[in-house]
């Protein structure tokens, strides 16, 4: 399953990719952004940072048993700090289809096009 985030900034593309990751599991519109969680990660380049970011999100979903629907990413060099907002999984309301095992390096790309739009994408294992 592939996830792709597109946005006017790198941060926005990372946020959209996280939203796409949630959509692999459930409809993000059904997830109430009530509770905030902060994550940090760093990596040698943008692409590894995207994988680390998505894996941080997978980890928070798995260990807190939560789903997230709002993301705020702050980047500096190859460091990321982000706030995620979400709620505990409710099987009846969220009907979560599948858990993501991890983000992979397949079709991994973080790039800006000529119009200045950023794309952040990779395949995730489910």
């Amino acid at each position, binding site marked *: 399953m592939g996830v792709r985030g597109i946005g006017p900034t790198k941060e926005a593309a990372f946020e959209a990719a996280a939203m796409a990751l949630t959509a692999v599991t459930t409809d993000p519109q059904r997830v109430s952004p009530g509770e905030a969680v902060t994550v940090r990660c760093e990596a040698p380049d943008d692409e590894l940072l995207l994988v680390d970011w998505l894996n941080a999100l997978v980890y928070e979903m798995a260990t807190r048993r939560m789903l997230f629907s709002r993301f705020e990413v702050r980047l500096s060099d190859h460091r990321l700090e982000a706030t995620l907002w979400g709620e505990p999984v409710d*099987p009846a309301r969220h009907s979560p*289809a599948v*858990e993501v095992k991890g*983000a*992979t390096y397949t079709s991994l790309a973080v790039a800006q096009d000529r119009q200045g739009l950023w794309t952040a994408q990779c395949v995730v294992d*489910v």
Partner: protein
Amino acid sequence: MDLNLLTRRSACEWQIRPFGAMRVPGIIYGTEALVREMDDKVYEQVTNVATLPGIVKASHAMPDAHWGYGFPIGGVAAFDPDQGGIISAGGVGFDISCGVRTLTTGLTTEQVEPVKERLADRLFHHVPAGVGSTGLLRLKAADMDAMLTGGARWAVRQGYGRTADLERTEEQGCIAGAVPAAVSERAKKRQQDEMGTLGSGNHYLEVQRVARLFNHEIAAAFGLREGDVVVSIHCGSRGLGHQIGTEFLKTMAVSAARYKIHVPDRELACAPIHSEVGQEYLGAMRAAMNCALANRQIITHLVRKAFAEVLPQADLNLLYDVSHNTCKIEDHVVDGNTMRVFVHRKGATRAFGPGHPDLPPPFRDIGQPVLIGGTMGTASYVLVGTREGMELAFGSACHGAGRNMSRHQALRQWQGRDVVKELGLRGIVIRSPSLRGVAEEAPGAYKDVSEVVQAADEAHLAGIVAQLEPMVCIKG
């Protein structure tokens, strides 16, 4: 896949002659139809694996091969540590030691059929399934390390199952050389509430009937008769394995330059077996393998509980437990010489033939059971390892059907409710916490598993013994 790129060696064996940086040939097993339908990426990935340091004999792809991460899913490759051979986290996969175990029940279809709805309810009640589900166990640090070292043996010591189960599990239920200290705290945290859970996606628990026997003699030795009811459990090392895979993929990608390993695809990230990173991954991966064995053992206990409530006369005995995402040290004969190699099986099942010393006494003279999972609407199969298979692909066979449609496509084509209804009309009872999950796993989204096992049989990787049809499916 373009067949013009391959040299046909027999009806079900196709070769990619070495070119460029390939150190060995690529070998793809499958009928003409299966190989033609394979994604071009399988060709690319088989070729890429053939470039890795220390690879022995060939880079293999099983009849169910499809596009994976670095290695194809359905990929088998062995590496010689003394020739710079590598170990690859991507070559094992995220769900380390994901596998299948099948239990006989001592019951006939006629006995189970009238109560299968209630049986489905009790199984769904006892075995936690789906996203966010937790097990009854909460592992503290010392228990976690004991589980990671002891595998299914640890689970049996805790009261989950019987000692007799261990003989019917690969490596007698415990992989030697696990190093819990090599497993990160994050991986352990991800697992602490997940013991005895099925997970989601393609993982399942099925009550099946033995629909057809292909080899009566071997079937009898496996304890399978037509009309018998069996139970199959498909799941793996849960969050712990996923986290180890995630972390070591990055560690290997970052350390590749240090070890002067240049790979054509970042996902092929690997480390020499004789290296700090390689040894650390081996220790962590073996711990994850033990986690998977313990997990399936606990689920077995829960399945027995559910059966006891509905069919107290049931006697659930383990036929065998096989893993299909592993790297194991094995002895194999290559060009007449016995070599100790590290065999990666990514979405491929070990299929040792008769006479192999690692097999338990019941299977030593006939070969090991090879358990191939289907979908909730199609057959699963029991095969047996062959002598020829030992020579072909390091004693390996296929592992399942493989998807032919993405989850997204499946979701556009089917409604979960309709899939449950349609299967119900065919006598198959489904229980799942997620109707969307059921739609994504619709039988039509998968390749025809019968064609895959037929090809494995024709290629002599393993021989077909029995066909199993689903009666009840608990879907994660």
